[in-house]
């Protein structure tokens, strides 16, 4: 009996066992297949979504053109219609206000934001391929720096790069765009009043020749000897970390006048004693007092020293020019001084006479 039971068990195990195993394996394979299929489907879905996202991103970055006057700018589409136009309008306003860059030069350029994609096809499609392309770092975020300043500054820099060496060595990279943005007339006055050099102090005192030297507008054979004394160069050098400077700087600080000049001449000290704010203020004064055309003429002029070019464009002498600039700067852009000329008296007398006539012809007891 016991043997029969053992035999039946053995038979059962031999016959039923493999079938059950086979059934389990088949089910597992189907599940794996299903899972694999699901994974593949998800992968495909993700890839599709990725490509859609990429496409959307590309669409976001696809360049869009905005124009205002002579300014043309390509910005990523994500910047939006209103912001893009504001950038172009702002750049035009800055350039108009600066007045230094000829409109024809602005019209020959197209400013492209680095972040924008497909700008070449936009340029071709819009017939702008012949224009010179300049790249600018315009943030893609709407409203961020969207006043056109960056575009205007980039255009100005492109113009400065085309100026002749005398101008390039004198004007700041932004011409006087920074003067408008930062209102740094106070900085220019501080530079003048700092008394770093005798030229600056005498210029503040009203000596035109000192102003010319301080602004560095004359073509001096040796600007360092004409505009600085060795002691002034020493004073400038000694404010720096002398131990990191070359031998001539260290000798200069120790008292060698020759070393001071040598160090200055190798580029250690600016040949123009005035700072950037002051140079910007000169350009701004020309723009305000003599108009944009005068400033453009001056920058287009390539003969003579910077001061001669500025004076020629303004139609006055060099000394008059620096005197005018000094008064303009120190009076905060106002009239040079209190005036009581015939020009001032004329409207007063005319208006007074008219009122007297009116009073005589009509009155309460008539």
């Amino acid at each position, binding site marked *: 009996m016991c043997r029969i039971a053992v035999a039946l068990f053995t038979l059962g195990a031999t016959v039923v066992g493999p079938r059950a195993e086979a059934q389990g394996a088949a089910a597992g394979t189907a599940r794996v297949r299903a899972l694999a299929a699901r994974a593949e489907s998800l992968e495909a879905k993700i890839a599709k979504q990725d490509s859609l996202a990429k496409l959307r991103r590309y669409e976001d970055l696809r360049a869009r053109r905005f124009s205002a006057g002579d300014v043309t700018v390509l910005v990523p589409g994500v910047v939006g219609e209103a912001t893009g136009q504001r950038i172009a309008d702002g750049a035009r306003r800055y350039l108009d206000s600066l007045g230094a860059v000829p409109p024809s030069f602005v019209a020959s350029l197209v400013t492209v934001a680095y972040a924008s994609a497909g700008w070449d096809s936009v340029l071709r499609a819009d017939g702008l391929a012949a224009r010179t392309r300049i790249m600018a770092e315009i943030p893609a975020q709407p409203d961020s720096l969207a006043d056109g300043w960056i575009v205007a500054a980039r255009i100005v820099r492109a113009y400065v790069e085309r100026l002749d060496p005398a101008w390039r060595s004198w004007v700041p990279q932004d011409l006087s765009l920074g003067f408008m943005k930062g209102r740094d007339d106070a900085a220019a*006055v501080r530079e003048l*009043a*700092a*008394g770093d050099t005798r030229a600056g*102090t*005498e210029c*503040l*005192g*009203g*000596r035109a020749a000192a102003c010319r030297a301080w602004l560095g507008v004359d073509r001096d054979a040796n600007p360092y000897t004409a505009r600085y004394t060795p002691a002034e160069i020493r004073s400038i050098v000694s404010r720096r970390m002398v131990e990191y400077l070359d031998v001539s700087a260290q000798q200069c600080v120790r008292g060698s006048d020759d070393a001071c000049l040598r160090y200055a001449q190798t580029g250690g000290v600016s040949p123009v004693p005035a700072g950037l704010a002051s140079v910007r203020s000169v350009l701004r004064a020309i723009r305000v007092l003599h108009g944009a055309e005068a400033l453009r003429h001056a920058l287009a002029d390539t003969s003579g020293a910077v001061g001669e070019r500025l004076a020629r464009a303004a139609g006055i002498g060099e000394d008059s020019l620096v005197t005018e600039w*000094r*008064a303009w700067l*120190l*009076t905060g852009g*106002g*009239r*040079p*001084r*209190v*005036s*009581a000329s015939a*020009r*001032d*008296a*004329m*409207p*007063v007398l*005319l*208006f*007074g006479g008219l*009122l*007297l006539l*009116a*009073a*005589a*012809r*009509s*009155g*309460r*007891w*008539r």
Partner: protein
Amino acid sequence: MFKQVLKAQWLAARLPVVLLALLGFALPLLTVTSGSGLANAPVERVGQWLFAAQQVGVLIPGLALLAGLLLGIGAWAPDHAGKHVYALALPVPRSMFVLLRFAAGVTLLAIPVAALGVGALVATLSVSLPDGVHAYPLQLTARFAMAALVCFAIFFAISIATKRAAVATLGVICGVFLADAILASLSIKDAASVTSTVFNLLTNWPGPLSILMGRWALFDV
């Protein structure tokens, strides 16, 4: 005749005239209260001093306005009070009487102008200026005289104007503000403000009030 009119006008306006003369004398002296020995002063101190001088200078056109107002209205005050009986009783045409009143008013106006001139001269003599800074007492006095004359003429004419003229003037002023309000309500892009345009026309040369603008500093670069 002028003497009588002048005397009558002086009696009516002597208090404001004396007050204006005192103010005129004192204002330029205010400029030098922050220091006088500037010949060898540090640049920063000179800059601060010039700034203070300019701040004081701003008060001078205000004084011109006050002088014009007080003397312009004061020129007709006795006539208004007496219902113009005195003027009508005089054996002169009206235009001549207006001219006499105007001339008398201008003569009285010369007193605060002269006082300001003396004050400016005293202030100039009391200070030692550094190179590059100059005093302009004559120009300041002349400009003050012109500004005071304009203000006097305006208030003189307003004071004697008919009701119709007053209404017309008021109407023009209201019209300017109304035009601005209409433009603002229409939201017209780049529409110029009528008020500011009119203001600019009046205060920029050759506008009659341009004399009140600009710089008024006794000491300047």
